[in-house]
């Protein structure tokens, strides 16, 4: 299973990809990830490639091959649609992160068009106001855990509690309760 995680530097994407990968290792699966670390982490576009259950493969998901696109930001979802396989699923947080160039007016950010595009062109797309749920959990910074919680409804090769446990291992104990809430809110938001 190939999962591409897309978003903006600072949203906790590396934590999300590590948690997924660790949970998969716990479940006895072979894993490859590729992360964006370095300059782009400063408010730039970032992606993590997460490949679960692969053996003779590199860390990068080819174009048109991802089973799931997990997007923590709507414009970044669109930017990375090329990775999604035909019939693949997308889970998108609808809250935009307005880049400075858009705030300055030198770059467009047509949020309505972007959301409409995702809804009308991807049958397997689920949109979620993850920022509102993160705030409800206690902090906008728990948005990544909201999204991981929602993702478990897409059928992962390990149980939800294993994923949550691996994510919490990567966080200081002082924020465990808040992130547990965020994960649970995300999980329930998309529960069928």
């Amino acid at each position: 299973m190939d999962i591409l995680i897309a978003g903006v530097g600072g949203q906790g994407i590396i934590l999300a990809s590590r948690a997924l990968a660790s949970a998969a290792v716990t479940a006895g699966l072979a894993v490859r990830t590729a992360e964006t670390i370095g300059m782009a982490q400063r408010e730039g576009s970032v992606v993590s490639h997460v490949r679960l259950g692969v053996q003779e493969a590199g860390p990068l998901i080819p174009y048109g091959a991802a089973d799931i696109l997990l997007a923590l930001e709507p414009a970044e979802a669109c930017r990375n649609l090329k990775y999604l396989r035909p019939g693949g699923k997308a889970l998108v947080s609808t809250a935009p992160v307005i880049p400075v160039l858009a705030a300055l007016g030198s770059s467009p950010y047509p949020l309505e068009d972007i959301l409409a595009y995702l809804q009308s062109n991807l049958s397997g797309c689920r949109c979620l106001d993850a920022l509102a749920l993160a705030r409800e959990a206690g902090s906008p910074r728990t948005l990544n855990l909201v999204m991981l919680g929602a993702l478990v409804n897409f059928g992962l090769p390990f149980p939800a509690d294993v994923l949550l446990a691996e994510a919490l291992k990567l966080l200081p104990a002082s924020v465990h309760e808040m992130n547990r809430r965020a994960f649970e809110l995300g999980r329930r938001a998309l529960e069928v």
Partner: protein
Amino acid sequence: MPVLLMGNEAIARGAIEAGIRVATSYPGTPASEIMTALMHFGPEAGVYTEWSVNEKVAVEIAAGAAYAGARALVSMKQMGLNVAADAVMSLAYIGVKGGLVLVVADDPGPHSSQTEQDTRLFARFAKLPVLDPSCPREAYEMTKYAFKLSETLNLPVIVRPTTRVSHACQEVEVGTIPPRPPVPGFVKDPRWVIMPSLAARQHVWLNKQQERARAEFAASPFNAVQLEGPVGVIAGGPSYFYVTEALERLDVKLSLLKIGTPYPLPEELVREFLTRMERVLIVEEQEPVVEDQVIRLAWRNRLPVELSGKHDGYLPREGEFNVDRVAAALARFLKLEQENPAPGLPALPPLPARPPLFCAGCPHRGSFYAFKQAARDQEVIFTGDIGCYTLGAAPPLAAMDTCLCMGASLGLAQGLARVQPGTRLVAFIGDSTFFHAGLPPLVNAVHQQTPLVVVVLDNETTAMTGHQSHPGLATGTGQRAVDIARVARACGVETVLTADPLDLEATMAVARQALAAPGPALVILRHPCPQITKPATRYRVNADACTGCRTCIDELGCPALVPADGSVMINSTCTGCGLCAKICPAAAMEEVV
């Protein structure tokens, strides 16, 4: 039970299992986490670790340990090897006693570098064996083996991961940490004193070691042959897996030679492979290091094989590879029609550009803003350097006119000053970079009395690479912080000033004072990076007071400031630096109590 390790952590683990005593490094993406992991796990295993002042010093310290027979590791990014080159080139002639491994991480793309230079080519230039891991697990195994090889050959050995190994994670079955033998100790011997006569002898020895290394690699498990007919691929590094995936996608089987030891090339193994081939495509990122050696080998052996790769344009020398790029090259090589795997979706709506920029609350924003304001009526050039503050070149601050390499802000400024006497030169350099490469050009400016304002942007960390320590800080036991102001004064800088860059008035005052100083002046703008401190407060906009003039957005370009219905909103990334409140003409920003 295997554990999930990032490539850099796998390298660190391999080094600890190999019994290193000393590990040194200077931070640089994508190599930084090797030392971070060693600092985490090393002390328990009795490993001395340090962030050295720069890569040259790091190599020399590790070499010193290896002279005494201890195993040592030094890690850096590809351009760090340029800084260390003087030591590395001579060290190849002198050799080592204990195993010395240089892990040099390359960054094809580039993602976070000024160049796409290929360390395998550097290894060939330095006449040092190099190992090219294809994945984190192999990086772990290669690192362990590299120490044995180093001691067999008495040569430093280079392990060259790329970004997609260093910053990739994989499950790795790790071994145990065996007890280490005692350090034999340094034995005084003329062999350690390089003189022209010794260099002449050692050059003959070094050339012989190339053939010994080649022989060692002939039976290396890091090279592997799979025969499937007379058309084949030679690949190494992560490209090996791009090839296996691309072949699967194209649904063809080809003969495959995996090369994990690109220099010196195990010629017998390759020759044997080539004799069975009619056509071969060589797939390697960056420079045609393997390809050139294969062409020479085929020519010298008069092998009737057609060799393709970079020289005939199947693959580029620039940029990073992936499955799609390799599949396209393979399809062309095999004259196959390739299906477009991307989903046929309608044209996307316009998407916002999202380049990296200063975080909310970054003190560099205040530094650049204040200096631009203070120098508004003067002819100035702002030379810049390597670090987070390079992002000061981006709009709206646009406060950096040059960036070349570590420390070049000071050197370039001195050259510009010599030919543009009417222009005021301001060199911006970070605290860690100042120690790394800023001291010799500072001494030079004082010695030559070149008028120049050096601005040390001191955020009390090496931020861009993940917040590592540096000589200006005492973060470890037994360390002493080197005071930048005292260093500058001791070098003979007469105007040395300090301010907090989030105090705009004070910063503009010291900027004006420094710009008026006759000789070299040095300004330290000190405020800790907001990524390593807890925000004390935050701000919000009083929408009734806000006139919607957008001064805050247009002048500061802070990601926390977002336009909202003719007004401005401050989002949750605010760290309370207060710059927007200080420049708001309507005093519309309020501190959240």
